[in-house]
């Protein structure tokens, strides 16, 4: 049996964690069962998100391929292992508050029986990036106004520091000043284009665009080159409603603003005409909110993580009662919520949802109770796993090749967005992204990096080494710096620009 205690930093300090408090009851439960202990690995994490998708203890089958049907392809056609192995996952942070031995025993018995009566499943096994949680995430952004009404809190106020780091004026001035330097240099060589393009993905309420443009005009006035006259600031979002709000915020700069409805994972569908023309692509807190798979290296083999969403049955009764439904109807109602959104749900199913408030409360409670069950599915070849269109899983190889056990994000949505954005950059252009980045693969071995719940959205850290590797393969230097303009932040600035 292998025990992987990841939050090693918690074993020291003022309040060191006692690992035996977590491991002891779990090992006792395993020992009392007839399960083959040599095929068990125990993984301890410290789930720092108060709201997340995991139970305190869970079992994750490590699948051999035989007989397994999955939406994730490809699977190994012939199994190397003769039977499944098992991972037991413990959240050390919460393990002191629950009867861990009993819970573990229940899970083992449920696994042996092939069904878990304490879980109401909402979907079949899927690649993590296809999980229902991303539909919840999309709903949050589409119906943010309704969510904020119910919770009484604006999204931006829930961010650390109370505002997006993209609004930090020192950071904005630094970027604009460096842009001026590039433009001055190009102008000297008579190579400065007439039109100067800056693009922002995910403008939110437009406040960061306003900060940026206000600072730009002020600095340009001092600089004296009239770059503002040539500037085109493009705001891009998949929500026309968001763009409308953002446009109102930058009304003072309306002559220099264009807005585009687009999917952040495919920016060239709308911006293809700007290939090699954009000097700055500006992204703040977007990538961490895009769908991601996870891959794991276990026992020298590579797996993808499959998940299926469920509700604990002890939470379902309460949710069902709220909407005058039987517990068995809840999965169907959740699917309708995700398809129709709260306002239409009221029209479609008035017997269950007499008002929008009830629909939003149903949404909020379902989201709060939502959990993910996981299993590991083997990959036969990295080249056959597609990270994103045109990006094969071969790009994961340098991060996995040590063979050491690791589980990490693939950040499929972020990678798709990143590789589809790079061709838009002018040879002297830059992509600047503020987000939560893991900058060293080793960090995945010692800390939990998501997914967690952030208000009504999903949050994940981003696999910086993977993005850097992919960027490098496309001719870009990718650099990570801790956000310099606010103390104590986890935000990292990723900058990509053409090398050579």
């Amino acid at each position, binding site marked *: 049996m292998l025990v992987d205690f990841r939050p090693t930093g918690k074993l020291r300090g003022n309040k060191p964690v006692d690992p035996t408090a977590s491991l002891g009851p779990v090992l006792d439960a395993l020992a009392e069962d007839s399960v083959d202990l040599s095929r068990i690995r125990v993984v301890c994490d410290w789930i720092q998100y108060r709201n997340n998708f995991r139970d305190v203890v869970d079992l994750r089958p490590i699948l051999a391929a035989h007989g397994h049907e999955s939406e994730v392809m490809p699977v190994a056609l012939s199994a190397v292992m003769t039977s499944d192995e098992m991972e037991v996952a413990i959240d050390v942070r919460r393990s002191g508050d629950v009867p861990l031995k009993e819970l573990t025993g229940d899970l083992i018995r449920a696994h042996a029986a092939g069904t878990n009566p304490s879980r109401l499943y909402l979907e079949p096994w899927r690649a993590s990036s296809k999980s229902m949680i991303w539909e919840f995430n999309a709903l949050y952004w589409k119906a943010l106004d309704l969510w904020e009404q119910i919770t009484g809190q604006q999204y931006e106020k829930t961010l650390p520091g109370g505002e997006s780091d993209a609004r930090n004026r020192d950071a904005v001035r630094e970027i604009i000043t460096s842009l001026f330097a590039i433009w001055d240099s190009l102008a000297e060589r008579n190579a400065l284009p007439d039109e100067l393009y800056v693009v922002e993905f995910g403008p939110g309420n437009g406040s960061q665009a306003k900060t940026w443009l206000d600072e730009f005009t002020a600095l340009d006035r001092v600089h004296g080159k009239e770059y503002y006259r040539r500037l085109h600031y493009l705001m891009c979002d998949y929500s026309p409603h968001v763009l409308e709000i953002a446009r109102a915020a930058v009304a003072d700069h309306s002559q220099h603003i264009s807005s585009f409805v687009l999917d952040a994972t495919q920016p060239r569908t709308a911006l293809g005409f700007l290939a090699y023309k954009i000097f700055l692509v500006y992204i703040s807190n977007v990538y961490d909110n895009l769908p991601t798979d996870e891959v794991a290296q276990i026992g020298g083999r590579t797996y993808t993580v499959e998940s299926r969403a469920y509700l604990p049955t002890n939470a379902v009764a309460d949710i069902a009662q709220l909407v005058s439904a039987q517990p068995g109807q809840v999965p169907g109602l959740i699917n309708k919520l995700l398809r129709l959104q709260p306002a239409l749900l009221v029209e479609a199913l008035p017997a269950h949802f007499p008002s929008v408030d009830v629909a939003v409360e149903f949404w909020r409670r379902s989201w709060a109770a939502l959990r993910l069950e996981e299993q590991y599915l083997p990959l036969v070849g990295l080249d056959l796993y597609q990270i994103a269109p045109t990006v094969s899983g*071969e790009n994961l190889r340098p991060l996995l090749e040590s063979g050491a056990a690791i589980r990490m994000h693939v950040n499929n949505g972020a990678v798709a967005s990143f590789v589809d954005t790079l061709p838009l950059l002018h040879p002297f252009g830059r992509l600047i992204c503020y987000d939560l980045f893991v900058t060293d693969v080793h960090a995945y071995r010692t800390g939990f990096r998501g997914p967690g719940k952030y208000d009504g959205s999903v949050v994940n850290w981003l696999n910086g080494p993977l993005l850097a590797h992919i960027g490098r393969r496309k*001719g870009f230097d990718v650099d990570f710096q801790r956000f310099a303009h606010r103390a104590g932040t986890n935000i990292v600035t990723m900058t990509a620009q053409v090398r050579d």
Partner: protein
Amino acid sequence: MLPVLPTTVVGSYSVPEWLERLKTDYYRNRISRSHLGEIHDMAIKAALKDQETAGIDIVSDGELRRDNDLDYLLARITGVHIPVTVKSFYFDYYDSPVVAEPLPLDPPLPLGLAEDFHFTRAHTDRPIKFSFTGPFSLSRRIQNKVYSKPADLVRALAQVLNAEAQALAAAGADLLQIDEPFLAGYPEDVGVAVEAINIVTRGVDVNWGLHVCYGNRYARPSWEGHYDFLFPAVLDANVDQLVLEFGRKGYEDLHVIQQLGWEGALGLGVVDVKTELIESAELIAARIRKALETFPAEKLTINPDCGLRHLPADVARAKLVAMVEGTVAVRRSLPENSGPVRPELIPAPTVEQGA
């Protein structure tokens, strides 16, 4: 005998992901130089077969032995010191090659390109284009610690390449192409570049091409602009053909090139190598017909904009097939007397036996 509007490639051919991985594995000491050489041999044979199957008239070895446009040559030039020969990705350039002593030029030591040509010759009966990076572009990645003027390093490199060109001609090469991918970034240096090109071509009696594009590093353009920067200097270049990029940028520069006095042949870029979208044969034909409004058919060779290195193999093959089909369609629409031309361009190939 080549047909009118012969089709060819610029040089490099698709490098599949598995080959990239193996090339990178070499730098991590996971496979030997010997095995990598065998892999390259197999890949080159496949590339030749792909081109033949697509119907390309003048084929190349796909430059598949080369990591990129510079390192293969720089690493072989005596006097160029490469302090760090490890790479994390094979396609990256070596960091900071240095020339600290004058290059030995009496005579320059061979680079081994003739052996590469021999291999290609032995595995195809089609005419071959053999390309190598020109002295100006090679010089741009070198730290020059010995020559007082950058131009002197360019001239010295040109002499090395001249000796190599003589060896290639002696090996049977009859169509050589000098690539200058960095030139568009330094338009003020065209004069030096042309002077060096004339050193390379001096005394080498083959058909010479000069390829100038706007860069294809990592499938991105490195520069933007127009081909007027080449003139008038390029009119003094002792080359028979300019091989230029038009498919991506458009054909406006054709008039500029004609009006500024270019009377030689033109390698017409009709395939955008920076997109995986496959041009239709009809589009290719339309591009050629557009060029025929400015240049006569007997002066045109049809090729992609640049090397196909960054395209997936299936895309590269499909683009070449479309290029050939589009060209054939145009040929059929030409007057009867436009038939096979330029037998002087490519002498009948000689196939080595038993190789």
